[in-house]
C-alpha cells in the first residue's frame, strides 16, 4: 500500500506492506538508522520517535497508521545535523553531551526523543518528574543519573 508522510520536515512516500511497523519504514526504507530496535515489545523505548510532536514507540505503530502524519526522528531534531557546531544543537542533545548522559549509547536516541517530548509537556520538571517521565525508556548500562542531569540541564536552558 502507498503511504505519504512527513519525516523530519520532508515529504516522503513509500510503498509498504500493511504489516510494516513504523520503525522498519524509518530504518529500512528511509535509511534513518538512529532509531533503534531494542526489545521489540513496547518496553525499552529505544525506538521512540515523535509523531505529531509526541513521543511514541515506533515498534508498536503501523507505518500505515502514520500515513499523513508528521514524524520526527533523532536525525531531524537538529536541523543542521550534529556535524554542525554544538551550540546549534537541540538543547536536549547538547545537554546529553555536556552531562555525559550516555554510556554505550544504544538507548540514547530514544532517551533524547522521549526527553524532548517530556519537556514539551512539562518544561520545568523536578528530578522525580524526569525519572517518571522517562519510565518508558530503559538504559541497560543503568546510566540514569547523568541522563536525568542532562534533562534537567536542558529544561533550564529552554526556560
Amino acid at each position, binding site marked *: 500500500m502507498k503511504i505519504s508522510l512527513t519525516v523530519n520536515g520532508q515529504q516522503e512516500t513509500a510503498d509498504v506492506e*500493511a*504489516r510494516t511497523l513504523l520503525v522498519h519504514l524509518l530504518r529500512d526504507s528511509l535509511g534513518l538508522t538512529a532509531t533503534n530496535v531494542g526489545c521489540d515489545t*513496547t518496553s525499552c523505548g529505544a525506538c521512540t520517535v515523535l509523531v505529531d510532536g*509526541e513521543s511514541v*514507540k515506533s515498534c*508498536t505503530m503501523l507505518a500505515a497508521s502514520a500515513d*499523513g502524519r508528521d514524524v520526527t526522528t533523532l536525525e531531524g531534531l537538529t536541523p543542521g545535523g550534529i556535524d554542525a557546531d554544538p551550540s546549534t544543537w537541540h538543547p536536549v542533545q547538547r545537554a546529553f553531551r555536556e552531562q555525559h548522559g550516555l554510556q554505550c549509547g544504544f538507548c540514547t536516541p530514544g532517551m533524547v526523543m*522521549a526527553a524532548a517530548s517530556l519537556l514539551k509537556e512539562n518544561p520545568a520538571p523536578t528530578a522525580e518528574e524526569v525519572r517518571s*517521565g522517562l519510565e518508558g525508556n530503559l538504559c541497560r548500562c543503568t546510566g540514569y543519573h547523568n541522563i536525568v542531569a542532562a534533562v534537567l540541564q536542558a529544561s533550564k536552558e529552554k526556560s
Partner: protein
Amino acid sequence: MIPAPFDYVRADSVDAALGALAQHGDEAKLLAGGQSLLPLMKLRLAVPSVIVDVSRAADLSYVRDEGEVLAIGALTRHHDVATNQLVRSGAPVLAHAASLVGDPQIRHRGTIGGSVAHADPSADIPTALLALGASYVVAGPGGTRTVAAHEFATGFLETTLEPNEMLVEVKVPKATGGWGYEKFTRRAIDWATVAVAAVRTTGGVSVALANMGPTAIRAAAVERALASGAGAADAAVYADEGTEPPSDVTASAEYRRHLARVLTARALDRCLSGS
C-alpha cells in the same frame, strides 16, 4: 517481530468501521492505539486477517460534560484522559488511573475504548471505570446499546461485544468525593500485579480490583462491610473474599490475596479521608 500478513482497511468514522466489520465479520479486528493489539499480533497471539484502523476517527476523541456524567469518546487517548480538566475534576480517580497506564509513549497512543474493549483484568482503566459504575455505549448494525461496566467483561480478554459492534463512548458518573487508587508493580511500566480503585459514589463507597480474577471485579464483601459501618482497616480484610487470583511468574495467588488486602486498606484510607 512483524505481525502476520493482514488486509488493512482505514475507517475514519463509526459508519465506515461498522461497514468494514459487517463485511469481514470475526476475521476483522479494530485497531485504535494498538498498544495492546499490535504486541499480541507480533507474538502471533492474535492473527486477524483484516485490520480496521479507526485511529483517525477524530469525532470519537472528546470529553463532554453532560451534567451528572462525563461522556468520553472511545478514541480519547490515556494522555488526554489523564490531563483533561473535566476528568480531573469530575472523575479524578479515572484521570489518575489513566496517568498510570504503561508509560508516556503508550499513553500517547493507547485509548480508553481500546483498553475497555481489550478487557485485560490487570489493566487500570477498566478497574477504575468499574469502581465508578461507568457504562459503555456500543454501536452496531441495529443502532446503539448501553452496557454497564460490570456486565461488559465476560472473561479473560472477553466481552459482550459482538464481531460487528464497536465501543464508541464511555459514560462516567461524576465522583468528586474521596477516592484512592493503589497499583503494585515490580517494574515502573508493568501491568498491575494487583490494583485497587476505591471511590465514594452516591450509593456508598465502591471498590474494584485488578488482576484478582479473569476480569476486573468489585470487592463486594468490602463494600458490604463499609456499608455496615466498618472502617478502612476492618473492611479491607475482606478484599480477597470471592476472588480467583491467578498464579504466574509475577506473583502467586496467595501473594495477590495479600496485596489485595494491603492495597485496599491504603486505597480506602485515602478515599475515606477525602472530602
